[in-house]
């Protein structure tokens, strides 16, 4: 065996020497190959590559598919194909439909699997192998925070997709990361006045919360907002992720004296917990002389489809809806609907908008350098992208815009018409200060160009 070890050492040495010798003529260390600008993956040819990292397998695959549709549409519009969509209504007129900074936009895709590890592996592949200059997409906060961290470390821009946790632009915020989607605090702030109007100030709320960070931030936000109305919080019960049957958490609600059930669940968990709560008669019963009510603070169209009849009359909040009455929404819904045959989801809208905002920032900055993009996006005010006047706040890279309070529609006209807009809550009412305790503890750090 000693002989073998000797051999191996010899081999190793020989191998390294040979490798170095072979390679010597064209040996250079990153990032000297960047010709004009010093940042990672600076586009050198006539194209610029964006990385679309969405869930393609697992429970959120359909949401991911919708995000991907939106991204493809955005790329078409940026390159001057199709009808231009929201580029026509966007308040910034920098983008001309001839690519970005004179370069044609191309894209690569990856599968996050809604797992932090897989999402980071996929993002790394796009950055290391395909030369992606920006990563965007995703359908959960855990993944968003994980990929945002990766992009900060590696030095590319991250434009978050669907992520609702306060942490994404709170304690886990990063200089290279930006979120257009709203967050749990905004959901609570938007819902509170409507809840007061509809259900009064004397209510007792029972929380069922998915037992992980997003669930906790939403529970905290909603409880704080409803307690400020004068509601009492009876219990906050944590439920395991993916518990298909929630009966053991629902029956204790029956005799708890609570008259409101708040479901801090998302996706499949919410579909199951809501359907089962309705099966336990919670939509039709009376407690304390009042109608028992269920609240789903974060809605999505796919969840509404999955829960079917159960969503009727249930209040919740949303980032955007294709039925909104503004020019941007109409333009986007039209070009999406004509291409795919059905209206876009809010996940699609936020992803489309993020792609456009990135492209516009690059065009305005005249570079794809992440630090240039950060500078261009920080404090950027815009309109015409479907959510009304919006600010990308410099302090935390969060968009501040109006938030929708929606309700499951009693008589939907078609399968895409499951939610009705109850109220459009203006941005002022959902804005918080960057040092709000629910968002404290984070630090943007400095932008990282990766070189």
């Amino acid at each position, binding site marked *: 065996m000693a002989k073998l070890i000797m051999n191996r050492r010899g081999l190793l040495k020989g191998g390294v020497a040979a490798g170095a010798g072979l390679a010597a003529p064209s040996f250079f260390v990153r990032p000297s190959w960047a010709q004009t600008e010093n940042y990672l993956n600076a586009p050198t040819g006539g194209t610029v590559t964006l990385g679309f990292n969405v869930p393609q397998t697992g*429970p959120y695959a359909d949401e991911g598919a919708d995000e991907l549709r939106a991204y493809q549409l955005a790329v078409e519009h940026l390159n001057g194909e199709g009808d231009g969509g929201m580029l026509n209504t966007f308040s910034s007129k920098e983008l001309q439909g001839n690519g970005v900074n004179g370069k044609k936009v191309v894209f690569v895709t990856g599968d996050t699997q809604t797992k932090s590890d897989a999402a980071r592996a996929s993002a790394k592949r796009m950055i290391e192998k395909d030369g992606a200059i920006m990563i965007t997409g995703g359908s959960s906060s855990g993944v968003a925070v994980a990929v945002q961290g990766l992009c900060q470390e590696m030095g590319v821009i991250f434009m978050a997709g669907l992520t609702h946790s306060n942490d994404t632009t709170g304690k886990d915020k990063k200089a290279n990361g930006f979120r257009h989607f709203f967050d749990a605090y905004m959901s609570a702030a938007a819902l509170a006045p409507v809840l007061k109007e509809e259900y009064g100030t004397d209510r007792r709320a029972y929380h069922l919360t998915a037992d992980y960070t997003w669930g906790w931030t939403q529970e905290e936000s909603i409880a704080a907002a409803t307690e400020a109305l004068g509601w009492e919080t009876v219990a906050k019960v944590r439920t395991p992720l993916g518990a298909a049957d929630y009966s053991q958490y629902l029956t204790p609600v029956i005799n708890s004296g609570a008259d409101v059930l708040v479901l801090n669940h998302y996706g499949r968990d919410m579909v199951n917990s809501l359907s089962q709560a309705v099966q336990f*008669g919670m939509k039709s019963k009376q407690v304390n002389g009042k109608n028992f009510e269920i609240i789903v603070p974060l809605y999505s169209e796919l969840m509404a489809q*999955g829960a079917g009849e159960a969503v009727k009359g249930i209040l919740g909040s949303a980032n955007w809806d294709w039925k909104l009455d503004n020019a941007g929404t109409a333009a986007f819904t039209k070009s999406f*609907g004509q291409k795919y045959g059905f209206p876009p989801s809010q996940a699609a809208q936020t992803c489309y908008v993020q792609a456009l905002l990135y492209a516009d920032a690059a065009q305005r900055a005249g570079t794809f350098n992440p630090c240039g993009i950060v500078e261009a996006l920080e404090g950027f005010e815009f309109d015409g992208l479907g959510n009304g006047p919006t600010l990308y706040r410099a302090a935390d890279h969060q968009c501040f815009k109006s938030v929708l309070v929606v309700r499951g529609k009693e008589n939907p006209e078609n399968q895409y018409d499951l939610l009705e807009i109850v109220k459009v809550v203006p941005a002022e009412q959902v804005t918080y200060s960057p040092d709000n305790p629910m968002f404290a503890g984070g630090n943007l750090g400095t932008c990282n160009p990766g070189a």
Partner: protein
Amino acid sequence: MNAVLLQILNGLDKGSAYALIALGLTLIFGTLGVVNFAHGALFMLGAFTAVTLNHLLTLEKVVVSQTETTAWGTPLEIRTPYAEQIFGDFGQFLIDYSVPISILIAIPVMVIIGIVMERGLIRHFYHRPHADQILVTFGLAIVLQEIVKAWFGANPIPTPAPESLRGMIDVGAGLGLQPGSVIYPVWRFVNFGFSVVVIAAVFALLRFTTFGMVVRAGMADRETVGLIGIDIDRYFTWMFALAAVVAGCAGVMYAPIVSPDYHVGMEFLVLSFVVVVVGGMGSLTGAVAAGFLLGILQSFASMNEVKNLVPGIDQVIIYLVAVVVLLTRPRGLMGRAGIMET
């Protein structure tokens, strides 16, 4: 008191579901000795029989409107379900009762799937190492899942129980408690009753019929049964088909409670393996007992009082019980010696 009573109901309901899922698995795994990772997929296929029937019944005649357009600019489509168009009110009834009707369809469908699976694949793996069985059945499960995903998407599909079975039963009032304090959904009682009937039927089949006698003999000593001139392989094929039917029916009946998606089988897979092993390999009674035990303990562990005492207990209770049982009883609750112990 009310809370405890409700949790007992939850436990029985959950337990019956676990028992039913484990029963199918233990027929294949505990007695035929095949590590069947595709069992969850059978459950999923059952659930999707209900979904498919519902889709077929609600197939719509599409008339493209000449004048009206949708909000996104394409021509408006006016849809009316064929079933309603052709059968009128009876069509409505069929759609409403699509889940119970699916049971009738699921039985032959699952028999065929079971036979095809056993003849085409599983049969060739009886004498292969367990490792090979795992790989091939896991591969099969993925393929089946992906086909369903390609067809139905990844989102859960609402599959409601019939209107008349969506109400509540006031159990408490029957026991002299305050009305409305112990109420429980009708469909969950239906599900519970159905499970009990199926479990009883499987037991009766194995206990009182020639088929059952041969199968039991074959499990005990396969070679001798072969020597006396019985074609044991044919019996094992039917045994596999029976397991598939049980799994499929469990899938149908559970669809109104947990909206099916393509991944639903995988989530029950691990659980059903745990239930079977806790019950003990080769014991149908053990699997059923373990199903109810785990169902009831899980329900109680989820009570706020218990959770406050031991945080996170509801997350791990199933596995904790499994560890405790397997350490105190070497072959689970009622396992027979020599089955998959090496």
